[in-house]
């Protein structure tokens, strides 16, 4: 089915340029494939995509929060609003894998109204697999594939804790969805989660005073901790109701504001670069282990290498570094 074949990369690059959904799906399968020759083909494909002039300026948004907070319905509302405005949207939804069987139950989250799927919305579910953080191996690569076709790419993750760190690295804006009255503000703070999101949304504002109280709690907790990441952006705490379609426009406008500010201050570019370094390090460490990574100078060496070749894509760099490690191994 998905055997890497000569010409596959070229064919997929053409298909993706044409926005062909079959090609998008096949490309996502390829970047998810762990077999060696497929992995090389995947990196070639991703490199090809990175070199190509994108037809638009893609933007990545992460949606995260505790189970039951209403992430999916909020994302649903966002997506329907954007779709109705004519934007193309790609979504990666990550669910946890069972530690015992390795299997996973995916889906059961998006049900767009009005036959949305064919009209510019593409959804791929992924299992978190063996990664502790809760993000799929292929999420970063998958996001790169979707970014080559769609203007908006959303990454939805379930969970609290580690996964926020990972998703924060691969999106441009991270939205945290909080549940009114869940009393988990303190838990969030303990877990260090409040330091990562760029925007907080208290969903289910239709619950009235309960939602209001949660928002105030969150806002004052954020005030206490302060935000040391970036002086150009203070994470706002919004209220929204996915059910009643309230606050959705406001959330979109806030995302746009974060985007514009980030572009102006250079924060966006710095963040994307940091995300690329993290991806390269993770990708090499997973395949070659810490020992292999050390052969190319560890995380710092990878960062230096990426910085020294600003024109090349991170994917080509990973491919090169990987060959170097393998070559070194063969030589020693």
């Amino acid at each position: 089915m998905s055997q890497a074949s000569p010409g596959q990369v070229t064919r997929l690059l053409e298909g993706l340029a044409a926005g062909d959904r079959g090609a998008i799906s096949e490309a996502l399968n390829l970047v998810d494939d762990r077999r060696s020759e497929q992995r090389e083909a995947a990196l070639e494909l991703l490199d090809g995509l990175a070199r190509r002039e994108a037809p638009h300026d893609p933007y990545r948004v992460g949606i995260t929060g505790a189970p039951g907070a209403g992430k999916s319905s909020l994302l649903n509302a966002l997506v329907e609003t954007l779709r109705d405005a004519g934007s193309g949207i790609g979504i990666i939804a990550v669910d946890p894998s069972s530690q015992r069987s390795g299997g996973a139950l995916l889906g059961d989250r998006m049900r767009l109204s009005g036959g949305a799927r064919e009209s510019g919305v593409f959804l791929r579910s992924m299992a978190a697999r063996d990664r502790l953080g809760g993000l799929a191996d292929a999420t970063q690569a998958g996001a790169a594939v979707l970014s080559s076709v769609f203007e908006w790419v959303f990454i939805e993750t379930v969970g609290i804790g580690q996964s926020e760190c990972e998703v924060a690295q691969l999106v441009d804006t991270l939205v945290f969805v909080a549940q009114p009255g869940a009393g988990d503000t303190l838990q969030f703070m303990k877990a260090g989660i409040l330091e990562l999101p760029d925007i907080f949304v208290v969903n289910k504002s239709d619950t009235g005073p309960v939602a209001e109280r949660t928002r105030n709690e969150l806002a004052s907790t954020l005030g206490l901790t302060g935000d040391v990441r970036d002086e150009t952006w203070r994470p706002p705490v919004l209220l929204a109701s996915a059910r009643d379609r309230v606050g959705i426009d406001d959330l979109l406008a806030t995302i746009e504001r974060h985007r514009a500010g980030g572009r102006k201050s250079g924060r966006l570019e710095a963040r994307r670069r940091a995300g690329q370094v993290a991806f390269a390090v993770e990708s090499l460490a997973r395949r070659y282990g810490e020992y292999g990574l050390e052969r190319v100078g560890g995380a710092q060496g990878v960062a230096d290498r990426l910085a020294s070749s600003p024109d090349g894509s991170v994917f080509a760099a990973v491919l090169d570094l990987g060959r170097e490690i393998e070559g070194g191994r063969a030589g020693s």
Partner: protein
Amino acid sequence: MPNLQEPDRPWLIRTYSGHSSARASNELYRGNLASGQTGLSVAFDLPTQTGYDSDHPLARGEVGKVGVPICHIDDMETLFDQIPLDRMNTSMTINATAAWLLALYVAAAERQGVSPDALQGTTQNDIIKEYLSRGTYVFPPEASIRMTSDVVAFTVAGIPKWNPINICSYHLQEAGATPVQEIAFAMANAVAVLDAVRARDDVPEATLGRVFGRISFFLNAGIRFVEETCKCRAMTALWSELGRERYGIDDERMLRFRYGVQVNSLGLAEAQPENNIVRIALEALGVTLSRDARTRSLQLPAWNEALGLPRPWDQQLSLRTQQILAYETDLLEYPDLFEGSHVVEARTEELLAAARNELQKVLEMGGAVSAVENAYMKQALVESHTLRIRAIERGEQIVVGVNRFEETADSPLTADGDASILKVDDSAEREQIERLLGFRGARSDGDAQAARQGVEDALKNGDNVMPASIRAAHAGVTTGEWADTLRRVFGEYRAPTGVGAARVTASGEGTATLRSRVDALSDDLGRRPKILVGKPGLDGHSNGAEQIAVKARDSGMEVVYDGIRLTPEEIVQSARDEGVHVVGLSILSGSHSLLVRDILQRLDKEGLGDLPVIVGGIIPDDDAAGLLAAGVKRVYTPKDFDLSRIMGDIVDIVGEATR
């Protein structure tokens, strides 16, 4: 032994039936009444239950399949042609659209010259169990509870002999509920409705006792019929306890636990199906033995339900089973047989204590509506069902003819193959649509439009929806139009599937072998095998799909399951976008041939013609052969209870397709 007490009156004897068209069902009803049936139980088709007209795209293949299609007042009048409604007791299995079907029933009665206050019967109208099991919900829980309480408030005032709601623990057992869960969740559902009715301005506190007294239940009766007897006794006790303590009712007549029963379909087997005749009779005993907790009405399924739709002769056998029990045996002559039995009392107390705890737990998380939204109840049911299936797979729970005593002589009952079930003629759908178009053409569109506006106004102003709906019924509004009006105001709802959080329960040697086979396949594929479990059409019976999804996950596969009521188009898009290796479809409504072929054609058009497709459901042999010929890789029916074997097949199929 002389018996000092008056003999008990027989329960209402019914058969759940309806198919093809109002005319065909009317003939069936009149035949059943002539053979001694004492009440009617109407089965509606899925489009009617989910608020679509017969000509809606989602209704394709479903019209007249699992029940009768009722699109408008003419259909309803035809259904009860020559059946005087003031002398009939009619039970309608209808939920999301209960208010509408009751409105049509009232309007049809008015056209017979019968006033609403003379009507007797039941609307099932229990929406919560639809989210948990049966799947014919349409609107969000809060809106649905409001509709339910509208019907309750309206009938308590205007149709005093009507049972406005039949709280169904039946479907909870079908979805896997243990007796304790069946008792507790049914009571939690009743509390949700009663609390909503109590909160209404138009229901004075003084009538709450009457409201309580009109709430009836619909129970299941499984094969462990001694325990089932205890369950009925426990529910009788818990209901009156709730009435006294939570609602302050002390009138004994209002506190009586009134219930009807449909005996278990879940336990009916496809293998040696004649054994079901005996199962059904024993299950009927479980709900009739104890006089103090005896059912008020009884419906028995047909012995061949696991094979397909029963024929009139099959239904007659079920009717005769009831009649033998009621009229031929001495069952009704005695007072309660278990009075003073410390064995039955002890088991009843045990169930009662556990059910009180479970009920308390649900109430503490905010009641049944919250426990639907947070998927607590659904997950509990999926887990119980998984345990049950595993026990059967391992032979710990014996099912005669299925996992023990499997040898059998050739059965003359099924010798003729698919002649032993009823086939709904495909022309039924076409003719129904022709009648619908004719009806729409003949009515006054202006009147219909005005009447729909009346319904919308009532919804928005918080008025009871019933009077406006009855006017709409007379004005020629159709089922789909009425439901669309509600969809516009309330929106549509999707319930959690409950499979996401189901704990891994599989273990043992078979599982280990299976997992290592899946791991090996993953190495070949470069990623884990990914399966799409799809439920096309309007059929909401999702237990089978859920069990397959959970089992596949436990075997190490990645499973995409998006819940019920998907169009073939959505399923094919999902198969493509998700990059799956195999598609599994589950259909129990009888519309498999049309829907599966549609999906195969669409896959082909997407360039996914090689993607293997497997199908599960109640699928007669002839149809299965047709599907296999059309390219389906495997067809599974209820006799394939061994999920591990199905998983093994999937590994083989994906392996072959990859090579």
